[in-house]
């Protein structure tokens, strides 16, 4: 079959890799430069510790655990270590990878596991509550930990009281940070980080919105290597600037009709984290001319969205674009909290319908022919209600294929059978290899 569209690799690919590797290196080497290390979830409010100084480096657990998952041998060693220590195999597999790395005292990017100076976490998924409590036990109980409870209900039901509840915890958190680090907090740095946080998330959404184009300029396998920066350090200038650069490049691809998949004939989306050790699933789709243009996961874990005048989804306007000047700590925290509580991937914790509505919107606006749902045994959080989502998508007229697996534990993924399912699904969509 001849290719329908032109394709070319991303120019900013090497830079994406470099930023990611620097991030892990900076964390490991922070102490050598007199800096601080903190650990926490990818959803934690990383703009807040940024107020402690420019030499404070995070290690966010989920993307770190995904890096482990990608290395099958190391992941297996981590699982075995965790199981030997008595933890159950059906727990969050990211959490297990992370604990395994501590137990083995092995950092996925070389050397011993670098223990953090403090833990800065938030709680929405049940596993969040336990992840760092156990990590702390394994690392040594003297590591101070602070957690912000963000489970205040869906964004559409946000009230001033609920917002005050989250903002209050943030204020307390800043005092706590000062106490445990002995550093003086700099509100200017916080304000700058909040601006960059919003910029990163809005620009990433704009990049994803460009994938509404036919042919799609990006495929989801590539997007995994790009959205990850937002999960590492969304409030950093480096990430926000990189996303601006990426946006320019993707705009240019759209203008020139550059496709991610040269023989694009069919568009699908996935859902939840993929089985990281088997991203070849996405390359297999391409044999059918099928491109996965993204998912609520890749769009909404980091991207922040708004309903535009024409009713469609587009990037949420940043405070800068709204002409808002942040003047003090309280205003910065309020903006940060209300911005983040609108996160698409947080809404389904309250009701699967909220997620179904967003998924159906994506299926329509991104012009999809079908949906591939990963029944991900490794993540209770993002799989919550996924069977309900399947029914809703089918009712909305979208063919759905499901496959079982685990984002972080390859022992629960059957590659051959998944490919067989894909064959049957593609065949039912009228596609041949």
């Amino acid at each position, binding site marked *: 079959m001849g290719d329908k569209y032109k394709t070319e690799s991303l120019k900013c690919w090497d830079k994406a890799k470099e930023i990611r590797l620097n991030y892990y290196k900076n964390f490991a080497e922070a102490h050598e430069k007199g800096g601080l290390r903190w650990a926490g979830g990818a959803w934690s409010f990383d703009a807040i510790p940024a107020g402690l100084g420019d030499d404070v480096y995070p290690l966010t657990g989920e993307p770190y655990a995904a890096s482990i998952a990608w290395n099958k041998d190391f992941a297996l060693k981590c699982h075995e270590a965790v199981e030997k220590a008595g933890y159950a195999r059906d727990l969050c597999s990211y959490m297990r990878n992370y604990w395994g790395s501590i137990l083995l005292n092995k950092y996925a990017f070389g050397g011993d596991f670098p223990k953090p100076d403090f833990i800065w976490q938030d709680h929405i998924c049940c596993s969040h509550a336990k992840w760092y409590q156990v990590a702390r036990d394994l690392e040594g109980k003297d590591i101070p930990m602070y957690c912000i409870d963000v489970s205040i209900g869906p964004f559409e039901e946000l009230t001033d009281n609920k917002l005050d509840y989250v903002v209050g915890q943030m204020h307390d958190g800043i005092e706590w940070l000062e106490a445990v680090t002995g550093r003086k907090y700099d509100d200017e740095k916080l304000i700058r980080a909040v601006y960059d946080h919003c910029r990163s998330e809005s620009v990433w959404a704009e990049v994803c919105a460009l994938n509404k184009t036919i042919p799609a300029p990006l495929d989801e396998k590539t997007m995994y290597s790009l959205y990850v920066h937002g999960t590492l350090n969304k409030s950093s200038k480096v990430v926000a600037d990189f996303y601006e650069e990426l946006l320019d490049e993707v705009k240019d691809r759209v203008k020139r009709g550059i496709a991610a998949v040269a023989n694009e004939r069919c568009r699908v989306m996935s859902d939840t984290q993929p089985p990281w050790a088997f991203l070849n699933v996405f390359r297999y789709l391409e044999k059918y001319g099928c491109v996965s243009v993204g998912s609520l996961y890749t769009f909404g874990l980091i991207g922040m969205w708004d309903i535009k005048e024409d009713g469609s989804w587009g990037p949420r306007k940043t405070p800068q674009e709204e002409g808002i000047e942040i003047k003090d700590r309280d205003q910065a925290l309020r903006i940060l909290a209300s911005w983040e509580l609108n996160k698409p991937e947080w809404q389904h914790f309250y009701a699967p319908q909220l997620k179904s509505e967003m998924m159906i919107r994506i299926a329509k606006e991104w012009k999809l022919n079908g949906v591939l749902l990963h029944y991900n045994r490794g993540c209770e959080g993002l799989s919550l209600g996924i069977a309900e989502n399947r029914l809703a998508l089918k009712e909305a007229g979208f*063919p759905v294929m499901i496959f079982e697996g685990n984002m972080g534990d390859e022992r629960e993924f059957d590659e051959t059978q998944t490919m067989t399912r894909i064959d049957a699904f593609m065949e*039912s969509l009228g596609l041949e290899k």
Partner: protein
Amino acid sequence: MTVVGIDCGAKNVKALILEEDKILAKSSVLSGFDQKAAAQEALDLVLKDASLKKEDLAHITATGTGKEEVGFSLGTITEVGANAKAINSLFPSVRTVIDVGAEEGRAIKINDKGKVIDFAINEKCAAGAGTFTETMARALEIKLEEMGSLSLKSQKAVPMNAQCAVFAESEVVSLIHAKHAKEDIVRAVHDAIADRIASMVRKIGIEKDVALVGGVARNIGFVDSLKRDLNLDLLIPDDPEFSCALGAAFAAAEKAKGG
């Protein structure tokens, strides 16, 4: 025009020769460890039976878990697609196809043209497939062929969880020690598989008429259990284990016609 459909399954390789709409010959051989050799043997047998040579064939399409192993095929189709084609031709009124083979159970929803609308596959758990009955027959020390008729003699429903084949085996042993009648235990085994299959079918929604295919459809005890569970009648072709091979043959004919 003469074509062959070949179903390279986990336990058996089945081949079928189709001339227009007429089945000329069928063969079935054990898959063993060498599926490639088994496929060749199945083809040789079926050609011999129909007094044909390979050169007489307009097309060969393979299906089944080992379809890629069939080196001499000219095309492939999935079991889902093959079953849809076969059943749409045999029973045009069918909208739901249930296929229970040795290692897999699957449910397929089709429209009036035989197009696949949705499907579900139960492949990770042996408790929803033919090998489960074999394991249970061994545990009960009876022949697999006797399972069906024995089950129909049962007067009493004995509950069994059968979450997985391994646990089910120890459950069967407990039932034997608890002095339950063999026929009641056999029925419990069939009820348990039927229960798993039925819940898989419900995932895609049951729309009448419903057909049952695959080797396990020969087990009258299982068929009885599934009918009771689904509370409906099942259409079963004469040779249910050849449904995939027949569908593959239809696909081969379409290809030969340039479809």
